[in-house]
């Protein structure tokens, strides 16, 4: 070990992270009588698994009762007032949170950190023996568990265990065990025991939450499933003392730790005793147990099956024979061939076994030997996929690299599989082993985006925090390394620089960021609002522009804001669009300020339609009128004027004729007047509003026909020569289903239109005759088309006509 520390839980608070993670130590004053306590503040020391110093810092805060590592390798320091302080691996404070008011008021006496399905959880026990649980420290929601009825003393022991995806607490009160869940249930549970205990002294849950070990005051070590349903063994330890630690070694055995004895007990009552000269700390892993001591960091595990098969003395497993074969082969002995012949049938199994065994070996020389055996066996196989072999070689190379004491992450192959490679790379990055991480990525040919460029981005973030290096140099170093890398988020790096107080550097870096969506929010955070606005506009992403605009509006006096955006048409137009929907008053003001008279006037016109009294409507129109004239829109000005005149005129009509005319157009008003036989008024209005003659004629005859005032229609037709001809007369009559009246006008229709008019009145025969007289073949065809299939006689007649016509030509 790179340290020289007496790992004594009596003297230190110890936190060891699983998966070969870091170790934190802090002097523990709690067991020391007050008088003997050292007055100086304690230090927290953080080491790698190899005992190398990573960081240390003086503890300035309250009284710590527990240290632990989260699954993201953050150090959690839990104080007796329920405050949890979170530090990174380098001892920099990240954040803190509280376990709630109750915990603060009542004080915490014990604490456990556990892995839940949501992440890392914390459970604290208060002086009133209530448990408060947080399932995930990244999403702090405090849950109070049920009190155990009638409990007066502190529980002798308790543990957290996951069941049905949610954390439960298992708590011992005297001779009883209680299972507390998070919905407020508190169920007594009783493990099956030959001689019931009067007190449970220690509980231990296995790494995978499936098994449970209990230690009782009658010296029994009980091993069973975590649901307490099945019992594997009860071992009489003949030891009355409470073990310092009771932990699982993988899933196969339990280790109890008393003064200098480690007792390893298996589920079949088999046991081994180890002695220790110096105090140690035990940390369970998925596949074994770490024993951290002053001088060494040991790993205790059951010999993996593959290794056992191959290396057990006298083993006849195919892997073992293959291993023998390579040894003979290296000696140049023909017995190699004999061994191979022996396992011919199961050679692929043997190869797989050797590969697997290599994975479990710690010594590179042994790994090599086993891998060699595998390659040797492979030679005799014809279609063996090399993936497993290649993969194992790569993994071993990675494992050996990170196990190096300089790095200090002593992982087993099983642990790496559980941890996964990306997480391992993250952890290397976390420890600032950027170079190794990149080499691993490149070696494994990981895609740049998740491999090297991501790591470089982290490196750059770290680089910008080195305050002693000048901006220029940092920017240069980063740009030169990252330039040819794609997919690096410069925004993240710039953010790091900004948070480190290096605004200039951040701006410089941010310039390299191609993504506006990343650039803009950071610029806003840096209060470079105008620059943010420019970048947002450039991107064309209107939502981004709106985001900046809103931010600007909130942080700027309104006058400045308007000045700022009026020079940027895109932003200005978007702001107007927003106002159009949400803030008409502002819209009006904007148009006013910009002298956009036309828009102003249009707005007033729209407004006028929302008014429900004539006076206000007229006043709206009046100001619209003013706007139009200022905008030099002559036509609109005139039209608005006419509209005002119309409204007044209609009001007068309403008063006089007691009918509704408002909101009709000029045309519709006159139409209605004609319909109601108010010819004088209609004529009057026609003059007043200068309705063109053609349209007036159309209007009048349509209305008269609709009213069925055929007399008046005829009178009107004779009043003077029609400017629209007489077909419309025919048309309106037909429209109002009066063929008889239509006849009256047929004679006055222009010759060119006669045929169509006769068709309209349904007199196809006459139509055909006229067309024939006019010697117009085309018109004949039109009539023919109208005949359809029913009118046989006429069809034939027209055909004859057509023949006659063509023969005349």
């Amino acid at each position: 070990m790179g340290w020289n520390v007496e790992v004594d839980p009596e003297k230190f608070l110890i936190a060891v992270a699983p998966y070969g993670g870091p170790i934190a130590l802090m002097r523990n004053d709690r067991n020391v009588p007050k008088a003997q306590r050292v007055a100086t503040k304690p230090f927290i020391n953080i080491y790698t698994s190899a005992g190398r110093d990573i960081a240390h810092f003086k503890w300035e805060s309250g009284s710590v009762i527990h240290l632990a590592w989260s699954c993201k390798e953050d150090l959690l320091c839990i104080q007796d007032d329920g405050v949890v302080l979170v530090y990174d691996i380098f001892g920099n404070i990240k954040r803190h949170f509280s376990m709630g008011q109750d915990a603060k008021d009542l004080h915490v006496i014990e604490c456990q950190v556990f892995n839940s399905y949501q992440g890392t959880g914390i459970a604290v026990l208060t002086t009133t023996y209530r448990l408060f649980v947080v399932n995930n420290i990244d999403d702090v929601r405090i849950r109070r568990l049920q009190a155990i009825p009638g409990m007066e003393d502190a529980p002798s022991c308790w543990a957290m265990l996951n069941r049905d995806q949610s954390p439960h607490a298992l708590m011992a009160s005297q001779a009883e065990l209680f299972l507390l869940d998070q919905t407020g249930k508190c169920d007594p549970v009783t493990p099956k025991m030959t001689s019931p205990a009067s007190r449970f002294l220690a509980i231990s849950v296995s790494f995978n939450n499936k098994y449970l070990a209990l230690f009782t005051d009658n010296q029994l070590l009980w091993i069973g499933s975590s649901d307490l349903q099945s019992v594997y063994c009860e071992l009489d330890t003949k030891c009355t003392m409470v073990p310092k630690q009771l932990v699982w070694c993988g899933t196969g055995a339990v280790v109890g730790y008393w003064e200098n004895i480690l007792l390893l007990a298996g589920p079949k009552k088999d046991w081994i005793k180890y002695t220790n000269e110096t105090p140690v700390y035990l940390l369970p892993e998925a596949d074994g147990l770490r024993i951290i001591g002053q001088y060494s960091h040991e790993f205790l595990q059951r010999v993996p099956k593959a290794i056992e098969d191959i290396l057990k003395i006298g083993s006849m497993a195919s892997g073992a024979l293959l291993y023998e074969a390579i040894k003979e082969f290296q000696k140049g002995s023909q017995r190699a061939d004999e061994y191979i012949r022996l396992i011919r049938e199961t050679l692929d199994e043997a190869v797989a076994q050797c590969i697997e065994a290599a994975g479990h070996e710690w010594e590179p020389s042994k790994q090599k030997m086993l891998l060699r055996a595998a390659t040797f066996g492979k030679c005799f196989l014809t279609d063996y996929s090399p993936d497993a072999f290649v993969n194992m070689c790569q993994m071993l190379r990675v494992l050996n690299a990170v196990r190096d004491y300089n790095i200090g992450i002593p992982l087993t192959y099983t642990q790496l599989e559980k941890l996964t490679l990306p997480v391992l790379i993250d952890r290397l990055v976390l420890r600032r082993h950027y170079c190794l991480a990149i080499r691993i990525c490149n070696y494994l040919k990981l895609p740049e985006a998740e491999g090297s460029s991501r790591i470089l981005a982290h490196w750059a973030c770290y680089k910008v925090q080195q305050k002693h290096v000048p901006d220029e140099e940092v920017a240069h170093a980063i740009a030169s390394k990252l330039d040819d890398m794609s997919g690096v988020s410069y925004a993240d790096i710039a953010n790091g620089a900004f948070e480190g107080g290096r605004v200039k550097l951040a701006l410089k870096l941010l310039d390299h960021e191609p993504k506006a969506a990343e650039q803009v929010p950071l610029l806003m955070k840096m209060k470079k609002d105008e620059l943010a606005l420019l970048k947002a506009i450039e991107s064309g992403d209107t939502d981004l522009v709106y985001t900046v605009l809103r931010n600007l509006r909130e942080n700027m006096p309104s006058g400045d804001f308007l000045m700022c955006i009026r020079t940027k048409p895109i932003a200005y137009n978007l702001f107007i669009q927003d106002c159009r929907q949400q803030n008409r008053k502002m819209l009006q003001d904007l148009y006013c300020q910009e002298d956009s008279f036309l828009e102003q006037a249009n707005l007033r016109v729209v407004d006028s339609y929302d008014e429900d009294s004539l006076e206000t409507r007229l006043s709206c129109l009046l100001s619209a009128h003013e706007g139009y004239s200022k905008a030099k829109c002559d036509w609109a000005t005139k039209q608005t004027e006419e509209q005002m005149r119309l409204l007044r005129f209609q009001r007068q009509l309403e008063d006089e004729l007691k009918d509704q005319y408002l909101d009709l157009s000029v045309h519709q008003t006159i139409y209605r007047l004609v319909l109601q036989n108010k010819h004088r008024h209609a004529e009057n209005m026609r003059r007043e509003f200068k309705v063109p003659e053609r349209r007036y004629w159309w209007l009048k005859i349509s209305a008269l026909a609709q009213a069925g005032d055929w007399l008046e229609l005829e009178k009107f037709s004779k009043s003077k020569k029609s400017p629209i001809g007489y077909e419309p007369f025919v048309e309106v009559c037909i429209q109002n289903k009066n063929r008889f009246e239509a006849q009256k006008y047929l004679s006055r229709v222009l010759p060119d239109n006669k045929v169509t008019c006769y068709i309209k009145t349904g007199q196809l025969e006459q139509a055909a005759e006229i067309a024939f007289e006019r010697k117009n073949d085309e018109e004949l065809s039109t009539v023919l088309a109208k005949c359809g299939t029913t009118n046989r006689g006429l069809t034939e007649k027209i055909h004859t006509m057509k023949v006659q016509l063509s023969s005349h030509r």
Partner: protein
Amino acid sequence: MASHLSSGRINLAVLRESYRRELLECLDRCTGSKALVWDDALTGPFSLIAEYSLLKEHGADKMYPLRPGQLPRNNVANIIFICRPKLSLMDSVAQNVHREEETAGCMKEFHIFFVPRKSMLCEHKLKELGVHGCFTNIDEYCLNLIPFDYDLLSMEMESSFKECYLQNDETSLFYTVQALMTLQTLYGVIPNIYGKGELAKHVVDMMLRMRRETVSTEQQITPQIDNLLILDRMVDPLTPLLSQLTYEGLIDELFGIQNTMVKLPPENLTTGDSSGGGPQEGSSEMKKLTLNSGEQLYAELRDKNFSAVGAMLSRKAKLISAQFDERHAAKTVGEIKQFVSKLPHMQAARTSLSTHVSITEMVKERSSTDEFLDALHTQQDFFKGLDTDKANPYIEDCIARQEPIVKVLRLICIQCMCNNGFRQKLLDYYKREVIQTYGFEHMITIQNLEAVRLLKTQEGSRSYPNIRKTLRLFVEEVKEQNPSDIAYVYSGYAPLSVRLAQFLHRPGWRSITEVLSLLPGPTIEEVQQIPIGLRKRKSSITSIQSGTVEPKVTLVLFLGGVTYAEISALRFLSQLEDAPAEYLVATTKLINGTNWIESIMETLSPKPMNPF
């Protein structure tokens, strides 16, 4: 179900599949039973992506339209709002949430998915309305370009044109660019970009910028699309105003096609069974039919000039009856078996035929009325350049008869375009006639039309005749039955937009630089660099020998909308022998003259007067 999407050079079913996957991921994020609350404008497009049964499989038990007030009683665990990021919708969302919380307590989880994108403004509005915190999920579902057919994609953003041109809000263009990026991730980076028009320029700029942003995560795919042509509707505003004369175009003009569905009065349909068409609604309601290339007969008919449809249908009828007659010839058991195996297909073909015969009858009936034909002749006179400089008596009569204002505005705009703008006096006269007849509430509409320059006064040189001549927009001799030029889609008028696409490939835009400079907005030519390994190999020696150079794939993106007739014209170009390119069409919205003008109009309705 989506087989009609995969029959083209670019397999658009892939795009649809990716949308489906994403949608289901969104839904699966909410565990338990769900009620989906839909923004009305989205139900149509979504039906093209995921059918109801699929949503149901993923727990969507209830579907409600988004309305103000309270949701119908329900007992689902999750309420999911699916809506566009429009502020006006947020009030309804908030009311729904409030009422639901009042009645059901906090038992339900609320989610909101914005389509295609979250908006800060909307989220802020939700905060203001006090419901932002109620949502477990506030997320986006990026449905941009919806595949309509194997060569057609639309974003169905109704207000895009208005927002871009009248309100200077180019949000929809940003969505468009995102959609293009989605296409590029699926089908590779498009090497050549061409464009014409102001908005096209903006889109290209944004697109190149966004590629720089995402270049690191770019998928390494060989480009399947060779060219992108972006056309701004303002380059050719005339075309959509004219009456489309293709089969599909006419159906759209007369009945309106929405998301490949058309609603027809059931009494005229004689299909008997719905097997040929889409799902059947209640019998008294309008009948819904799905129109896409999945139906073989429709695929053949839709791009034809309507005058050619009748003849084609009768040919088909003969063919089918001949097929049915084969049963008499079938003597041996084997032959009969063969005949029987063809039966379902033949029956489907027969249903399809009878459906289209009825549709054709309906279209015929409505398109041979005087109103339709007179308007058509007037349009044709205009694009021939006849009497465009004085008040047109037909338009005057239409106004006098108070025919629908959209029809009148459409005609006036056509005349204005063809005349290169009106004399001030004529413009004022038309405008006054409209106001006096249809009312002052159309004041803003008229100003809008002027703002987008569909109505304008004469200015500068009269460029239209020149453009018309160079691009051969007016074609005297069109063989509608058996066309040789795209002008058949408007019986004599060739859409300018499609001519630009045509000239791009043959003989190239360089030959029409003069015309391009007369058209509004900049001309764009950009190249997107592509890694050498991914470039298509120049046609190798063997292919030159065999003489089969595969035509390039060109994606034509219409900003501001495209009509069915234009699509037909592009399809016509794709199908020509030795065609230099095959076209894929994308647009912000499928339009026709009527709904386009309507989208520009501003309808004001007066508040009732207070009688006191």
